[in-house]
């Protein structure tokens, strides 16, 4: 079938941009209205950046942003280490149950967030309840859910995404190069640092940026496992929306969207750059993160 006729070309172009419009018009409107002078409603009354200035003085937004950054940074570091170790363990070593391990590694990626959220809530309640009983804490000084539980929850799905991208890189890394390193006198430890890790670096970095982005954006799971003093930015935005509809929310959402886009483009850029330098060898890596981005 030929797609080269003018008619087909026009149709394909129209379909592509039609779908993109459908996807991005809400975001465009959000960005637009974050610069609107009117406090309420859908009428454009003039350009302003005052909502962005107001954000700087909004203590709740600033503290929530700080929480989000802390949680994202810590959970990403842990997720990268665990996710990389996990993918090495299930792809480079053989043992009983390895096949099953390979099949369930992406469960956190495909599990509905609501399910993950509810199950983590139940789990943390159980553990924290038992811990409080054991330590004899009463209501006044009891351990509660907070940043720690959010970090654990974010590590849980972040590590799965890291495993996803690292495994794609591992598939492109000839096991013979690891043997070559040992053949040349490198210990297994040195082989990992000098050959394996540089070889899978595109996957590790891509996974790290994905984990970071997803942690910054996450709402559903975070909502279930957060506690007093651990409000993240998405949860704060949701809370403010419930009280009043403020253009400040538009402004902060625009900033979140911009930051997420930059991180994602960086993730893809790193992988594409490495792929170009090792031309011909790395081909499938850069397509994986796109598949891995969940609908939010």
């Amino acid at each position, binding site marked *: 079938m030929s797609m080269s006729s003018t008619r087909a070309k026009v149709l394909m172009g129209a379909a592509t941009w039609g779908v993109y419009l459908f996807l991005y018009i809400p975001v465009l409107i959000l960005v637009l209205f974050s610069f609107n002078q009117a406090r309420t409603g859908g009428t454009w009354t003039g350009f302003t950046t005052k909502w962005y200035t107001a954000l700087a003085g909004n203590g709740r937004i600033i503290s929530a942003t700080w929480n989000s950054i802390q949680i994202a940074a810590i959970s990403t570091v842990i997720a990268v280490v665990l996710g990389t170790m996990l993918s090495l363990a299930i792809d480079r070593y053989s043992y009983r149950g390895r096949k099953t391990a390979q099949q369930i590694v992406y469960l956190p990626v495909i599990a509905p967030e609501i399910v993950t959220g509810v199950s983590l809530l139940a789990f943390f309640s159980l553990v924290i309840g038992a811990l409080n009983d054991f330590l004899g804490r009463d209501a006044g000084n009891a351990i509660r859910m907070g940043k720690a539980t959010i970090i654990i929850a974010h590590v849980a799905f972040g590590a799965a995404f890291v495993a996803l991208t690292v495994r794609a890189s591992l598939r492109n890394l000839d096991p013979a*190069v690891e043997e070559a*390193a040992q053949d040349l006198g490198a210990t*297994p430890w040195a082989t990992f640092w000098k050959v394996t890790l*540089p070889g899978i670096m595109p996957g590790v970095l891509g996974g790290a940026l994905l984990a970071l982005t997803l942690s910054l954006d996450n709402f559903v799971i975070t909502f279930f496992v957060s506690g007093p003093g651990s409000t993240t930015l998405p949860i704060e935005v949701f809370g403010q929306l419930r009280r009043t509809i403020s253009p400040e929310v538009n402004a902060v959402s625009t900033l979140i969207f911009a930051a997420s886009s930059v991180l994602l483009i960086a993730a893809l850029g790193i992988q594409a750059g490495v792929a170009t*330098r090792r031309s011909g060898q790395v081909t499938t890596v850069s397509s994986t993160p796109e598949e891995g981005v969940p609908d939010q």
Partner: protein
Amino acid sequence: MAGDQTAQGERGSVSLRGVTKRFGDMTAVDRVTLHVEPSEFISLLGPSGCGKTTTLRLISGFERPSSGSIMIGGIDATDVPAHKRNVNTIFQNYALFKHLTVAENIAFGLKVKRQGKTTIARKVNAALDLVKLPHLTSRYPSQLSGGQQQRVALARAIVNEPEVLLLDEPLSALDLKLRQAMRFELSQLHRDLGMTFIFVTHDQGEAITMSDRIAVMHEGRIQQLDTPLAIYERPASRFVASFIGETNLIDVTVTSVEGDLIRVKVAAGQSVLVAPTGGHTLTPGQVAAVAVRPQRVVLESPGTHEDATHALFPGVLRELLFIGDETRAVTELTDGSELIAVRHNQAGSHPFGDLRPGDHVEVGWRHGSACVVDE
């Protein structure tokens, strides 16, 4: 380093004693015993799945034997991990480090052994000169051709001055012309370096042209270990005879041993004399086969050779095939079996004289030019 403890005079020797390697139910290497002399160029030759690559991986240390022992340089290396063995490998697909430049690839082994910067630079340059690649130091492997990558892999291995260089089908990924040029270069490199080379290949031409000795492997075992000439002239088994070069195989029964020659009976009933096999004892009544190279097959008009030095059978010439350098003659014996004769073409004369398809002929061999092989 294992190399520092190497006994004098043993450096570069490799000994496998009764080495077996099993993967689950499959026996990849079956009681292989092999002694490689220092500075020898030995080939492990066989079809895929014959155990030659596993044998190489046992020597490099990537696999541990299920039983048996391995000595390298006179020292027991059976339980020494790969990174502590003083051997280096050229991998089939080179296995270059893609994130490192040519110079960094070659320096890898010296760096992990913590040699000084100036020493590393000097040795890397010497290795690059040796493989004729001095101008490509800062390129990445993906920017090199297959032949250049091959040279980098060579330099990366020999820069470590190993006792033994292991080569795993290093030429199989190259195109024909380059493959033939590299045969010559590898032989020259072997002479210049004085290192032991253990070369794995399924290509009999490579093995025959480069090796001091060839170990022909089949189903995990060494079928024959000898010089290329001996293996070609006196194959020990039906498998070796058919794997190395082209061979006519005729089923026979051994009748008696007569001095240097052996009397056998062919299926058609005729009793003829042939040369013995490489080192095997044959007992009368044993079923065996006679192997004779097509170049050695005698093909004449009836009555040309009446003397007692030839074993000849009546037959009919069926086909004459011109194939460039050579002409092949397919003859059919009275029992229906075929014998193929090959002659080099020479300007101005027909290699088989006046013989034409359909002619009655006498076909066979001079006693010494055919030999008996085991089943």
